[in-house]
């Protein structure tokens, strides 16, 4: 049973990204109004905006949280060609009593010559690492050698994907059997340039990232990409937002550990849905990777779920404004029951 309610966001322009922290108690939003907001969940489950500040000199595309063991750290990327690492500082003023928190800029990463389109922290077990990708087709991996000093980041790797990058996703698997892996999507719409999703894998021997796979069947512009939380599974699942929602399964083929060649994968398409009519903008997995949410040009949020046979089907649809889609069998509530979704406007 899902109930949608609206939150007074008070951004002056389009919101481009929302991001939850590890515990789901904090949230960050970023917008074309060049600002970011941080929200904390109050005791009554309401979201309170505890910080709002101007961050970049252009639209802010994405915002993402670091794992809390590195502190309260956010990263943002923008049209202004930079990515910025932010840290919350406490105790300096009486802000806390007013319910406000203070975020300061720890570093600005200025290596890109073009708009930085995505920013993601690497999985926690790899240490504090930050990845950016930009419209000029370069993926950059930074590392903070000293997690106590977030103003120092060194550029560890530069991967050139040759195509304008729009999104990146780290494989979250912490299993030692899986080498660090990152998937990069390109929004280049020229179908003749071939596969728009490239997967790079870290090689322990060469200490470099090498291309392990290109998903040749994805030839249209890719807008979002998301590895599913691995949760101890023996394979990887990748969701792609392109002109349809696509779910790929990557089964690593066994290899001898001494070889320096990248892992080979058996790639299967688990599902392909064009019910968003044309472009799909975002995909997101839940924590157990059993539910996938997608949004697209039809202005709807759709939820997908697999049955035990690995057959994926739509279990819920909600319009972008939160209203239920009339006449749809099993609207969003369909995931868990039969109640209808409803809107409760939250007054501030």
């Amino acid at each position, binding site marked *: 049973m899902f109930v949608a309610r609206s*939150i007074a966001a008070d951004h002056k322009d389009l*919101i481009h990204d929302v991001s939850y922290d590890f515990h*789901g108690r904090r949230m960050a939003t970023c917008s074309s109004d060049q600002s970011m907001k941080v929200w904390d969940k109050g005791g009554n489950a309401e979201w309170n905006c505890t910080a709002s500040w101007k961050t970049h000199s252009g639209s802010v595309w994405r915002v993402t949280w670091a794992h809390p063991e590195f502190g309260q750290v956010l990263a943002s990327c923008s049209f202004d060609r930079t990515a910025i690492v932010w840290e919350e500082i*406490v105790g300096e003023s009486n802000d806390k009593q007013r319910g406000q928190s203070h975020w300061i800029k720890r570093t600005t990463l200025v290596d890109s010559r073009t708009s930085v389109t995505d920013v993601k922290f690497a999985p926690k077990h790899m240490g504090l690492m930050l990845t950016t990708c930009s419209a000029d087709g370069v993926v950059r991996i930074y590392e903070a050698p000293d997690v106590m000093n977030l103003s120092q980041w060194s550029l560890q790797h530069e991967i050139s994907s040759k195509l304008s990058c729009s999104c990146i996703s780290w494989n979250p698997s912490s*299993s030692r059997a899986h080498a660090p892996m990152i998937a990069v999507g390109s929004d280049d719409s020229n179908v003749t340039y071939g596969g728009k999703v490239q997967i790079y894998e870290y090689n322990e021997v060469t200490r470099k990232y090498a291309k392990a796979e290109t998903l040749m069947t994805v030839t249209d512009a890719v807008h979002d990409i998301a590895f599913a939380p691995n949760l101890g599974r023996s394979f990887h699942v990748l969701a792609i937002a392109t002109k349809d929602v696509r779910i790929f399964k990557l089964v690593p083929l066994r290899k001898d550990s001494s070889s320096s060649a990248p892992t080979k994968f058996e790639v299967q398409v688990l599902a392909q849905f064009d019910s968003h009519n044309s472009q799909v903008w975002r995909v997101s997995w839940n924590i157990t990777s059993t539910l996938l949410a997608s*949004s697209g040009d039809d202005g709807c*949020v759709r939820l997908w779920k697999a049955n035990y046979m690995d057959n994926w089907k739509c279990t819920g649809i909600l319009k972008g404004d939160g209203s239920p889609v009339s006449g749809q069998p099993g609207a969003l509530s369909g995931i868990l029951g039969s109640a209808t979704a409803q809107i409760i406007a939250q007054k501030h």
Partner: protein
Amino acid sequence: MSSGYKPDILWSPHHADRYVICDTELSLYRIGPAGSSETKAGALPLSEETAATLLAINSDTPYMKCVAWYPKHEPECLLAVGQANGRVVLTSLGQSHNSKCKELVGKEFVPKHARQCNTLAWNPVDSNWLAAGLDKHRADFSVLIWDISSKFSPEAVPAEKVRLSGDVDSGLVVTKPLYELGQNDACLSLCWLPRDHQKLLLAGMHRNLAIFDLRNTSQKTFVNTKAIQGVTVDPHFQDRVASFFEGQVAIWDLRKFEKPVFTLTEQPKPLTKVAWCPTRMGLLATLTRDSNIIRLYDMQHTPMPFGDEVEPTIIERSVQPCSESIISSFAWHPSAQNRMVVVSPNRVMNDFTVFERISLAWSSTTALMWACGRHLYECAEDAGQGVAATEKDIATKMRERAQSHYGHDTVQVWRNHVLAGGDDPQLRSLWYTLHYILHCSQYTENVEQKQQSNKQSLIYSGIKNIVKSSSGTTETRRCWSGSDRQTDVPRYHSEERSLALQLCGWIGRGPDIDVEPFLKSLEQEGEWERAAAVALFNLDIRRAIQILNKGASAEKGDLNLNVVAMALSGYTDEKNSLWREMCSSLRLQLKKPYLCIMFAFLTSEPGAYDAVLYESRVAVRDRVAFACMFLNDAQLPRYIDKLTNEMKEAGNLEGILLTGLTKDGVDLMESYVDRTGDVQTASFCMLKGSPGEVLKDPRVQCWIENYRNLLDAWRFWHKRAEFDIHRSKLDPSSKPLPQVFVSCNFCGKSISYSCSAMPHQGRGFSQYGVSGSPTKSKVTSCPGCRKPLPRCALCLMNMGTPVSSCPGTGKANEKADLTRDKKLAQFNNWFTWCHNCRHGGHAGHMLSWFRDHSECPVSACTCKCMQLDTTGNLVPSDSV
């Protein structure tokens, strides 16, 4: 009129709910909510929510080429129509009693030479000015600017006028334009510049775009370009203009008019309409011929003026407003955000809103947040009851199970399946299997001591291995109990086979091989058919019949069971009897699997029990027990192997009975985790493995880590801690070392008593005041050098002094929960300090101080100790 004429669409500039469709005639529609009382029965549905009502039709002006709506409020429904012969006619829709309107309607503006009128535009400021763009006629002017208020000219030559339409009063004809522009050229498109209403942008046939200033018509700025089929000014950036030609759109900055700022990717088909969105900055919609797609170009992130070095980012989108049908034209709604009406060649209309890109994210607790435009929506999972458990997501299930202490019942292990909700047959089977395994192993431990450690590990290695090690099988032919007839059914016995039966739960542990207690428990649970089948397999027909009778007479019993009992009682081992014949054919119609296998057993040849062994609706444990009784040493391992592989393939937890907690079992669990993501069950199951060998498997470690991570993300920290304790019993290596030592200021040694005694077994906390062993030195001093410990910043006692339980703020009476209070009182004695200013004291005192203060209690210390940590402010969600 040619039937190929495609309808165009035009919104009223002032009425947000009205628009005009023009093809051969002008039709005025009003748009309203569908199904409301306002909209009549004849309303055309435009979308799920809206419908249009036809208000008026005007077919006075044939040969329409272009239409423009008068921009002023009054008169409201005045339209200018450009015709194929170049005339511009003013007409109106609906009844307007406005005198000014009456005066204007029917007025005609006639060019000197008849040619097609391509475009019309009202001046946005001086609304009397109407610009008309015409085709080329020799050296004549192609742009005529009419003043609609001008008096009709008496010298109009009626002879020159080709009467195309009915009875237009020749008295209303105007032939003298206010301005004439664009000599020796054709005008395909034109628009007034909003920045300066005296300026006009023309797109001419001579491959140029030209800006004319009416104050000085001889001067013009122009640029050569092919993109002249249409021009339109961005309402939000008045210097930004889009013009198009064939499939290409060029974007211009009027301040740098030499060349287009950029061109959009070319479309394969020619464009028919290009329009800026009036409600959203930098959004351009384009339509190509015979297409069902409207392409949108989002230039929001293109800075104006365009810097030379900045590449424009244009986000291209395409929308399909009416699925497969072709779009003839579209029009943006003047005020509703991103809304448009589209019309198809056969006049089917569609109300459509272009959605902003929605970004979304899941939280760890299965709440979905998305941003649509400037708005945020959260869709939280409601912990509603009455939701079918099978439909719940595994994340929800794991959370609920963690809260009900699933996996933690180590005494009655089978009960864990009840803690898990009790509705999953696989979990039920798994926990019963684990229960029997632990049960048997405890028994062998107690009774047979360590002599048979071999057997001990055998129990954990599953029936597959037990059966393989089987030796000394004996064969018996028992009588049907209650009859003295010899059966020809051979039954096999061996020590290993009875162990397998024990693990299946059919017989109790020890030498006792009586199946009766098992039957009793099945009867209690109302599993009549299963009990009857088990009785029958133990060759006790009488007991089976008795069970069935009981089942029929029980509450909510199935009376059919009596019929089955009757059929059963007629059993004969005569090979060719009618009973046998009927049973073997009719049993296939039985719905209940256990009844089915009973008759399958009775009618099978000895040793050929496939109908029983491969009846997949029967629990694996019953089939395996059956196999252990009736399959010989050659058949049994083959069957068990086959079944094991099947279970491993499917990730079916019932198969743990066969694989035990071995590598095979981990393989099976791996495919279960791959299928379900249920790392919780996987972790708890593997933690039951006694030798702990399976725990060393990296996959198992990975599941455990993932499960702990889930608990952390859900803030089930208490559950995680309990899980760790549970785990450390089996896997001592997982125990963390002491985390913090406090050393004495004077001697530098650790001041912890427990730590000094047992350096590596402390719980990691330095606890004072409660370790009151009388032989030790005073608790308020360092055990190494006997110097006193620091003082509490609040009570100024040396640390280690038991603190009074009254927190000093007089709130003691408010506390109702005494037991909880007592627990806290112990904690009150702990020494705490701020890591920043390194002032501290008794935990209880510090807590009560910081309830009302934010600064450190030590004088002149301004440290805001309580606000230094954000993670610490998070409360675990599993505490009461």
